[in-house]
């Protein structure tokens, strides 16, 4: 039998049914493992003080009623920007150090209602300002594949929790790449649902117009199940869609990809991309063809424009969203904002100021519309767009120093899909320098099912979703 920490959601449920182990066993196992590896990797910022108590209750429920909830007894790692009642929530910032949330976020509420059990809260870039977890006020998380490297971010803690097998599943959030990029750098599966598919209520806002909660998981099947649980109209979030949620797991386990039309974007195979990374992407494309998909090369707006648009919109929204941390409430003064947050607040304040609004924010919105239109046209003819998640593998610890645009350069291939609010899966597609590389499979808004279908077929027919042996890598 596989060790408990290696089991997928489905395998955990089978174990419960067979009486192989209890939820308490599983939670204890993870807590022990966290105790062993967390001091070095710095993945969890805080642990759920009631995890074992809750596990006991779940064991009683399983005994009485069996497994009647989709995530019953599944141990989760939760990114620290989701408010969780009873567990300190800081968004990786000293501003909120010691903050006890007054309510439960919509998606964590849905996870709890589905039976999930939270192990703890994971490290992230401070207020999600970054793509490395290096801007966290509580120190960087290290990459389980090689602790000299970063896990990516901002959901770096949640991605590393999956890679290091310190939780069965994890919740992250993506504003532009913050799920898919750390998933790629840590070699795990990540999924960004359409903007407005899962509610943002109780998720500490970064850029309101692109923030999307999404899962990090051991495989696409787990990601599909979690996405289904957290999706749907949120009465507390006016930007969520009333469209019915598809039963994503139903679209898995397809034999092949016959009839699927995929676009490979020329401009996304960047000139600065390492040839070995490019090769992995082209290998993946060959695999998709082999599975029956047709792949054609298309041309899109240079991704550099997305960086400009995203930077202006995101900084503007950040400057506004963080103004509630005014030093009057929440216990800490504003000088505790990290350097990167201060930089973003200042840039956003500038771009929204009288006389500059038209030149920056308004223009950015216009280009955003153009990008949305461009994608719509592509999806008239194609089911999905594929490409690399990141131009290269995980960078070394310290790489963000003196690089204010670090995140934007690393997320250059993700920002367009984020500002257009698309659905996108990130799956591992191989290694360079013993570090994982990720493939993104991006579909139209609310076409999550197609992204799951393609990513699942690719994942089952390749063997890139693997996990490090921590005793060797650390």
């Amino acid at each position: 039998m596989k060790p408990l920490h290696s089991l997928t959601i489905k395998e955990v449920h089978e174990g419960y049914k067979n009486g192989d182990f209890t939820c308490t066993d599983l939670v204890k196992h993870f807590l022990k493992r966290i105790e062993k590896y967390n001091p070095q990797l710095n993945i969890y910022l805080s642990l759920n003080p009631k995890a074992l108590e809750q596990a006991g209750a779940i064991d009683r429920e399983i005994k009485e009623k069996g497994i009647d909830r989709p995530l019953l007894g599944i141990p989760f790692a939760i990114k620290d920007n989701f408010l969780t009642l009873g567990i300190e929530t800081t968004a990786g910032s000293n501003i909120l150090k010691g903050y006890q949330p007054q309510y439960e976020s919509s998606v964590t509420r849905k996870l709890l209602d589905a039976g999930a059990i939270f192990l703890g809260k994971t490290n992230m870039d401070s207020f999600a300002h970054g793509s490395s977890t290096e801007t966290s006020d509580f120190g960087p998380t290290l990459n389980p594949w090689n602790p000299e490297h970063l896990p990516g971010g901002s959901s770096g803690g949640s991605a590393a929790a999956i890679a290091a097998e310190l939780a069965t599943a994890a919740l992250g959030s993506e504003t532009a790449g913050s799920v898919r990029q750390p998933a790629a750098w840590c070699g795990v599966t990540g999924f960004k649902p359409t903007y407005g598919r899962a509610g943002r209520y109780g998720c500490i806002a970064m850029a309101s117009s692109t923030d999307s909660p999404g899962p990090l998981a051991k495989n696409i099947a787990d990601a599909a199940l979690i996405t289904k649980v957290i999706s749907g109209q949120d009465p507390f979030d006016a930007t969520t869609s009333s469209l019915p949620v598809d039963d994503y797991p139903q679209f898995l386990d397809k034999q092949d990809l016959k009839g699927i039309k995929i676009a490979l974007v020329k401009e996304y195979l960047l000139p600065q991309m390492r040839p070995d990374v490019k090769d992995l992407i082209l290998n993946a494309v060959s695999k998709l063809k082999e599975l029956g998909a047709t792949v054609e090369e298309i041309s899109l707006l240079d991704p550099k424009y997305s960086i400009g648009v995203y930077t202006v919109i995101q900084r503007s929204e950040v400057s506004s969203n963080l103004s509630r941390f005014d030093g009057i409430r929440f216990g800490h003064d504003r000088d505790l904002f990290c350097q990167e947050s201060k930089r973003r607040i200042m840039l956003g304040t500038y771009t929204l100021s009288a006389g500059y609004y038209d030149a920056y924010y308004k223009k950015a919105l216009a280009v955003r519309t153009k990008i949305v239109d461009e994608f719509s046209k592509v999806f008239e003819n194609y089911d999905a767009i594929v490409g690399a998640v990141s131009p290269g593998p995980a960078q070394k610890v310290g790489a963000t120093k003196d690089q204010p645009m670090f995140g934007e350069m690393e997320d250059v291939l993700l920002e367009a899909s984020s500002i257009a609010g698309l659905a996108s899966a990130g799956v591992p597609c191989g290694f360079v320098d013993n570090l994982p590389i990720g493939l993104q499979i991006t579909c139209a808004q609310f076409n999550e099912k197609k992204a799951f279908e393609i990513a699942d077929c690719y994942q089952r027919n390749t063997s890139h979703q693997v996990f490090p042996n921590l005793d060797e890598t650390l």
Partner: protein
Amino acid sequence: MKYSPLIGLEVHVELNTKSKMFCGCPSDHFGKAPNTQTCPVCLGLPGALPVPNKKAIQSCIKIGLALNCTINHLSKFDRKQYSYPDLPKGYQISQYDQPFCSDGFVLLESGKRIGIERVHQEEDTGKLQHTILDGKKVTLVDYNRSGVPLVEIVSRPDMESSVEAKEYLKKIHELIRAIGVSSADMEKGEMRLEPTINVKIEDERGVFYTPLVEVKNINSFNFASQAIDYEIKRQIEEFEKTGIEKSATNKTTRGYDSVKKITFLQRTKEEAKDYRYFPEPDIPPFVLDDDYIETIRQELPFLPDQIIATLVSEGVEPKYAKVLYANEKALIAFNRNKNEEGIDKAKLSSLIANKKIDIDKDIPSQYQKLNQVGITDISILASIVEEIIAANPGLVADYKKGKTTVLGFFVGQAMKATGGKADPRTLNILIVDRLKEAK
């Protein structure tokens, strides 16, 4: 030398919706224990999001329709950003360049139109309470009012005197109450007034405009009127002294001291805030089609001007139409009885307006009594009067001596002779004439 004041008004109205603008907390905050009606949304806690109140937006549109505005098919909320302890998010959700309603007007008695630039939806702030606690000067914040729906009505600078401004304000107040979207109780701060004033000065040197002054947060029509009068005088004097004209940068904000009856400087434009407005990303834009707007229009009751116009078209004198409109019971009494047989609408309205009729009692019978029309045919009455006078020479003599009380006897006799059917007025005139003639 000619002085023409230019006055515009911003009016804030708190709506009477059950819940707040963006959350489920009760919006009725008056007199409630501090911070008992709050939630993550109106406290601006991390992660909280606004969900717009549909009823409030409908009320805003109703106000726009009542003020003859165009309802915009595309509208959105924006964030107005400034830092203040009563504003927990650090921004107020308001509307910037696409309000729900624009370009309306109010008609004054004189027939003059006061333009309405826009009617938009926003949220109220919390309330600061400066007090002494444990011997220390402190400021407490009560967030019960935070997020209460607020509608702002912005007029054009079309008013030329405090009298016009006051009439405009009264009309707005009357309208808001008539459509039932707010009690607009001034004392509870449910309606707050902010006049903007400057003066156009024409003399042999040319035409000049004094710098704009906005007077903040006034809560009575009289204070608004006093503040306007004070400002007009003050601005003219200041111009005569300094010669400073209006520019793009010298608008100032003043407060009104109702005890001293003066305005005082609060801030100059140099200190004025750049609100860094941008579209509220947490609330999708609104697309309002004609059908939807029409549905809301159907919900509007008849408005004061419409009611008065209808009464006038029925023959009611305008001055009585206004009296009837102002007294709901009287208006109902009029409408219930105006179509009864034998009732003249104009006459009925005047009787009700002049309180000649007790509206709590049966109205037709009172009307008939007050308007009894008996025999007015002089040819019939004259001969009866003639007979009575001929039969009572003594009394005629008494009358001639100045004993006018005998007049009642003659009238009474004549009434008796006609079986009470004579018209008393006609009778009176005939008898007096006849008595004067008698020898």
